């Protein structure tokens, strides 16, 4: 295969992987946007995000922190906010903060480095969105704000002749049908298109950055680390959990904390789609100012906090694999073939992503069909769902015990329910210690057996699973006992440090079985102590 074709294939693989990783949070974003549209309406949405008051910025930030979406999942919500004429500052506050944290990723983040660091990062993000939002609100001309119509605004209630009052007439099953048909249509609408622009950023990066070129780019002693990361982060699309795991690797490798902060705020909060959408909505001049303020604030904070953050016992490795995911996935040593491309493309995609991607694909196809039918019926592709739903409403016969609950109350309950659901999901994602230890037992057996037999690929795959479960074990313990003993934390640190050593041995070319076995011997004993630390009740702690 030609060299350039090979590089291009790497870019396409990254785009495909981006779509798969975005699909779960994109579906959640569609659901939240549908709630805003059908239950809150324009007025309710504006009130939810703080209206014109000063608290709109921190309120949007706080809402963004609670809702489980990524920077692609925010698109449908942004369209609804824009349609409701929410302040541009609040819009940017929500767009930047919603993808940064959610209950799942925040808990995961607390297991990395010192919990205070992650809390400080969260506080730093609040500062950024407040400063940037304030500057934008200050400079954004009110006229533009009043006139400009979002792409989502083509679906404005007023635009298709359906008023807020008509929306309120949609209740019960009709509204539910409206919600689902809108979600299906929107999945093949502007949200998906902008999402595609976002994941194209990953493709561009993979084409520009050769395989492994980011491995030594953000070392703690490199004064250019935050600036380099700022340049890379602009086209990056990353899910909150991916960023958290990258932050973990950065802390583990003692990389630049400033670069980690830039990756969190710009890499996770912003993508190419967000940037271009803002540009098309508000004009390039104000958006350039907004973007410049954002970059300057983030990079300034990054340099201010860029003190070495090296945990006890960690000696900087000199490189990290945390950012390999942004470089071309095709290494020079690979033999070009379609099978290799396929294997590389699906590597690391977990079953929840497959399920949500399949569901999104079904939605997308159904959405295309519905939009085609709408066009045949003479409705505008974007507004017809609402209009057709409203037109089909017939007077509902009043039943004696029927009470019409205000839509905002139902919508509020749904949003609160979603937040509660995501907290409950934390307990499912981070199971009880005994369950986590059972998963670890399987991962450990696979890793050690494969490593001893020299099956490096298999061992590397399961090693990541083991590492991931080690963190989930800590979070699972903490959220149930509200405590993680220093000894448990240290044993967790030790097992991950040794797993990292094993990873380096497995990746070494040529593979050296004797060196690998030495590391395995260390892991056996450390693993025993680590598992004991989580299994033993307090009364037995003094028994070795």
């Amino acid at each position, binding site marked *: 295969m030609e060299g350039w074709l090979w590089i291009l294939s790497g870019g396409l693989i990254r785009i495909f992987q981006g779509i798969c990783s975005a699909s779960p949070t994109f579906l959640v974003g569609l659901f939240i946007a549908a709630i805003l549209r059908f239950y809150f309406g324009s007025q309710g949405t504006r009130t939810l995000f703080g209206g014109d008051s000063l608290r709109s910025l921190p309120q949007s930030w706080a809402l963004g922190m609670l809702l489980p979406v990524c920077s692609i999942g925010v698109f449908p919500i942004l369209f609804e906010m824009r349609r409701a004429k929410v302040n541009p500052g609040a819009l940017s506050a929500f767009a930047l903060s919603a993808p940064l944290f959610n209950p799942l990723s925040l808990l995961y983040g607390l297991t990395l480095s010192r919990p205070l660091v992650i809390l400080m990062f969260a506080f730093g993000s609040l500062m950024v969105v407040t400063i940037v939002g304030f500057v934008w609100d200050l400079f954004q001309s009110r006229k533009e704000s009043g006139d400009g119509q979002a792409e989502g605004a083509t679906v404005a209630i007023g635009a298709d002749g359906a008023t807020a009052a008509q929306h309120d007439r949609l209740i019960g099953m009709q509204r539910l049908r409206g919600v689902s048909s809108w979600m299906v249509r929107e999945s093949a609408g502007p949200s998906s298109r902008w999402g595609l622009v976002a994941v194209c950023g990953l493709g561009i990066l993979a084409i520009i950055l050769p395989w492994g070129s980011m491995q030594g780019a953000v070392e703690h002693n490199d004064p250019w680390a935050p600036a380099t990361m700022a340049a890379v982060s602009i086209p990056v699309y990353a899910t909150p959990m991916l960023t958290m795991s990258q932050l973990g690797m950065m802390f583990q490798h003692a990389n630049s904390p400033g670069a980690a902060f830039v990756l969190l705020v710009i890499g996770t909060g912003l993508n190419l789609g967000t940037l271009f959408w803002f540009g098309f909505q508000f004009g390039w001049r104000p958006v350039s100012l907004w973007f410049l303020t954002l970059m300057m604030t983030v990079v300034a904070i990054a340099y201010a906090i860029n003190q070495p953050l090296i945990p006890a016992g960690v000696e900087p490795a000199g*490189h990290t694999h945390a950012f390999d995911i942004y470089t071309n996935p095709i290494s020079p040593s690979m033999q070009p073939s379609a099978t290799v491309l396929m294997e590389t493309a699906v590597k690391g995609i977990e079953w929840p992503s497959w399920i949500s991607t399949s569901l999104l694909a079904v939605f997308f196809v159904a959405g295309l069909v519905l939009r085609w039918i709408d066009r045949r019926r003479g409705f505008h592709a974007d507004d017809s769902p609402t209009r057709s739903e409203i037109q089909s409403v017939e007077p509902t016969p009043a039943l004696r015990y029927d009470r019409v609950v205000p839509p905002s109350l139902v919508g509020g309950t749904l949003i609160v329910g979603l937040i509660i659901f995501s907290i409950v999901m934390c307990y499912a994602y981070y199971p009880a210690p005994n369950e986590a230890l059972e998963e670890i037992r399987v991962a450990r057996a696979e890793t050690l057996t494969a490593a001893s037999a020299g099956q490096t690929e298999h061992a590397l795959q399961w090693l990541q699973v083991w590492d991931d479960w080690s963190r989930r074990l800590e979070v699972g313990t903490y959220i149930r006992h509200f405590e993680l003993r220093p000894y448990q934390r240290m044993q967790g640190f030790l097992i991950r440090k040794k797993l990292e050593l094993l990873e380096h041995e497995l990746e070494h070319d040529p593979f050296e079985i004797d060196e690998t076995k030495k590391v395995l011997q260390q892991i056996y004993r450390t693993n025993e102590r680590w598992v004991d630390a989580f299994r033993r009740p307090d009364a037995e702690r003094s028994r070795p």
Partner: protein
Amino acid sequence: MRPPFSSKLLIAVQVLLVCCLGGLPQGCSSHFESEQKTLFDEEHQVPEHWPEGLDQLAEDFRRRLDEVRMNLTQDPEARKELSDLVTWTDEIAADSDLDENRWNQLHATTQRLRQQLAREGGEWSETSLRLGEKLATELDRAVDYVRGLQLARDQENHEGEGAH
């Protein structure tokens, strides 16, 4: 719908990225191959004064503490290395057969000593030296305890082999 982005802007972004990132090295192997010897060293620069285990930590710490206390060394590097040993104690002790309660005692002492050293900007004052002495004693006890465990384990193994 308007096109999602103008091609000029996209090209501008790409040019910017190429300018910023073009100088990045390709891959890690060439970057790290030159000066290292073993596989472990190749990936992690381990400091020369990193102790092999708890025994060596206790020994090194006692020796270096005495040197600093008796002003046998004015070398700031030696003082820094002593502080490093304090920082590494938690990890090295956790990587031994020391049980959790005994580890917690060591941990508490190292925490106090590290805070004291941070307050003094890494200098070893009288207070730090006193805490250092406490840590040295605890490390000696920890070593005795781990050795005792090892002896008991060896004895058990011998008896087991004898029974067979």
